[in-house]
């Protein structure tokens, strides 16, 4: 019985107000590829952040090759041969590709950088992983998928004992993904323990030897890949049938509420056109970096807009900022809840009423009773828990924070609601609630544009789906045309737009 390369036992992790991991076990053998799957908010990222030394477990034990270790910092983790490819890219934008690949272990001659070794080494590694990049280019100027390749190269360069990849293919093309799989198989053959986090079940089935499923911060099950099916994985991940998760309300589809023609932002978005009609849930999907968020931001004035027409209820509008967008009837719930969504020190009430404060005030003085009434109404309607609107929003769970941000924009009485990854980082219970809310809204005549990377979600609730690829948009797929393979083909560029 070989000693596993990695054993994590009984890992518990708490943050203020949140129990992120409640006693998770993970065992990974040398020379194997071990996938960790789970919904957003299941705890996958937290678990690997503990492994990479960025977080410390509140309780539990970690053993490497049988010996207990303490990973107090990333430097510790590096010393034990753990390399990590992060989901949120962790590169120094002002340094070059070659410098980033070797950051922290730069080849040197005395105090000086050994440029020749740096270049040859970096070139070699990039070739191995099949990436064609300019070694002297500043990383900050690269596209997201190129940056991801640099991250992978950096981890590979460390010659690690254990390598962890967190959603590594989220912005890679099909071709680049296959090349990555080749690298991972090679590493497996060399005896490295590969930990692969993904919620792309198709990939997991293609590459993994063993699978650990997390759900709501706990271990839902660990299986060998042999004989494992996607359905069983989903069942473990979700705890119930998928169809329950995304209840689809039938709603009458009415007039076009939002019409976008030829939208460009001069950077990532080229000539995008789409329509959202009353009572409709329009899904918008694509790979990370495809430009979906940029489209939304361009519409409401959070990002540049160099060309295009926007019509709401048939009237031309040109919002230069979210306030003008709101007046035009368009509301946008941002993708990054932590950065662009919540105002952390303010209460739930203050967060909800922020865009409409002027209308709840007289001559600049806030009318407290009117504000409280509005906030309480929204909170109740969306089931925000705990139901005290005076509570600081930073103390709420991810799901409730998301509901608060949605409530904020509902308070603005929009005609069209754009939701960007509305259920990311939200636990399963809240996810269903949010989808119920969305269904409710459209049945009242609102139009919803839902940007999401989660195919099951998109396919289950959308009336029509737009797929974006590298800044361009494909004609919408109707509900009867929805097919996972077709959508992926459009998203990765295999099928031309």
């Amino acid at each position: 019985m070989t000693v596993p390369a990695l054993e994590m036992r009984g890992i518990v992790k708490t943050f203020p107000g949140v129990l992120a991991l409640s006693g998770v076990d993970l065992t990974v053998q040398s020379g194997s590829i071990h996938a960790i799957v789970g919904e957003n908010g299941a705890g996958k990222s937290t678990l690997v952040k503990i492994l990479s030394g960025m977080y410390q477990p509140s309780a539990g034990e970690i053993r490497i090759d049988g010996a207990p270790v303490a990973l107090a910092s990333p430097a510790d983790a590096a010393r034990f041969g753990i390399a990590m490819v992060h989901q949120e890219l962790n590169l120094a934008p002002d340094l070059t590709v070659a410098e980033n690949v070797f950051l922290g272990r730069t080849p040197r001659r005395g105090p000086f950088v050994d440029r020749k070794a740096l270049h040859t080494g970096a070139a070699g590694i990039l070739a191995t992983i099949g990436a064609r990049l300019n070694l002297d280019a500043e990383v900050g100027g690269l596209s997201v998928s190129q940056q991801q390749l640099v991250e992978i190269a950096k981890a590979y360069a460390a010659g690690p004992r254990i390598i962890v990849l967190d959603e590594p293919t989220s912005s890679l093309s099909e071709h680049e993904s296959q090349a990555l799989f080749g690298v991972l198989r090679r590493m497996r053959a060399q005896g490295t323990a590969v930990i692969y986090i993904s919620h792309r079940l198709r990939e997991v089935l293609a590459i993994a030897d063993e699978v650990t499923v997390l759900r709501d911060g706990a271990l839902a099950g660990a299986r060998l890949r042999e004989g494992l099916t996607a359905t069983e994985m989903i069942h473990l991940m979700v705890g119930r049938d998928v169809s329950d998760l995304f209840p689809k309300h039938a709603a009458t589809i009415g007039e076009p509420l939002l019409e976008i023609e030829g939208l460009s932002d001069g950077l990532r978005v080229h000539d995008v056109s789409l329509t959202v009609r009353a009572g409709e849930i329009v899904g918008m999907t694509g790979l990370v970096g495809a430009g979906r968020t940029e489209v939304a931001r361009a519409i409401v004035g959070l990002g540049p807009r160099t060309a295009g027409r926007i019509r709401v209820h048939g009237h031309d509008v040109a919002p230069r900022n979210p306030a003008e967008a709101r007046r035009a009837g368009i509301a946008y719930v941002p993708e990054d809840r932590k950065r662009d969504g919540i105002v952390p020190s303010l209460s739930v009430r203050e967060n909800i009423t922020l865009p409409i404060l002027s209308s709840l005030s007289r001559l600049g003085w806030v009318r407290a009773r009117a504000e409280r009434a509005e906030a309480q109404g929204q909170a109740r309607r969306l089931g925000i828990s705990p139901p005290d609107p005076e509570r600081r929003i930073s103390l709420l769970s991810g799901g409730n924070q998301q509901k608060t941000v949605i409530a904020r924009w509902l308070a603005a009485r929009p005609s069209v609601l754009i939701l960007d990854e509305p259920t990311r980082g939200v636990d399963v219970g809240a996810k269903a609630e949010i989808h119920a809310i969305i269904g409710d809204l459209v049945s009242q005549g609102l139009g919803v544009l839902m940007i999401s990377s989660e195919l099951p979600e998109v396919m289950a609730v959308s009336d029509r789906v737009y797929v974006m690829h590298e800044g361009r948009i494909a004609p919408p797929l109707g509900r009867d045309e929805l097919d996972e393979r077709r959508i992926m083909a459009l998203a990765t560029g295999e099928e031309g737009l």
Partner: protein
Amino acid sequence: MSTAPLVKPRHVARSTLAVAGSLALPIAILAVLFFGTAASPNFLSVSNLLNVLTSMSIIGVIVVAMTFVLVSGGLADLSVPATVAMGAILTLALQPVLGTIGAFAAGVLAAGGAGLLNGVLVGYARINAIIATLATGTVILGVAQWVVGGVIVYGADPTSGNLLKGRIGGVPTLVLIFAAAVILGHLLLSHTVWGRWTRATGDSLPAATAAAVPVRLVSAGAFVLTGIASGISGGLLALTLQNARPGIGEGYEFDSITAVVVGGVSILGGQGSVPRAVGGLIFVQLLTNVMTLMGVRTPVQGLALGLLIVAAVALDLAVRKRGGA
């Protein structure tokens, strides 16, 4: 089918540190009062305390405005000495031409204009506030001196300061002005749309932007406020002293920032209130008074203030890190 324990947010009891953080200021003020009474017989006299209150009033107006700068995430306004000087110099220089009130208004307007410049640079051009206000301060101070040919300006009418040096209803006029500023400032920050926008902008600029808050206007406005407040203070100073040197506002920027920071207003933005800033001011002024009465020399006082800032900020950070308050 039973599921794994759901992720439940636990109600966080306010950590001891957080409670300590919010009580620290009143306790500190009480401590200084006790210490002062013990250290010097002159301390607890009406005349001494009234003196402290009066000298506090001039910088107090600036402290109220500086609170907005910090809470909105504007870091700091280092051009205060220049705008104070501008207000002071113009008030006395233009007095023969525009009369006392007119000259005072001109001084405040000019200072407010300087604040507008700061506001545009920091709020709209998004330049680092420290650099911007350091630079504009240099320019403004130079311009203020240039305008009068580099000389010290003296008051033409010695009686013009009498109202300010006197009392209304038993309370020194300057203190009344300060009190008015405090009340106005507090109401503005805590009960108006503008105040809410200020707090949101400082707490999370991207989130406030996405939530339709006019963040650039709010950021700029804070600096206009400090400009106006400094102009007012400068004018008041000039009328009370009946002279205006270019160095008249020296140290005011550090003093006001110290007061605000010691009061628990975070330099990172979002947290804080006018009462807290005023509390910090009271503490610092009382402490300085005690040290002066004890014969502690100015440089040592400066050292103590420096240590105070560090201690206050470190405490604030420690409280924040534990997720309390």
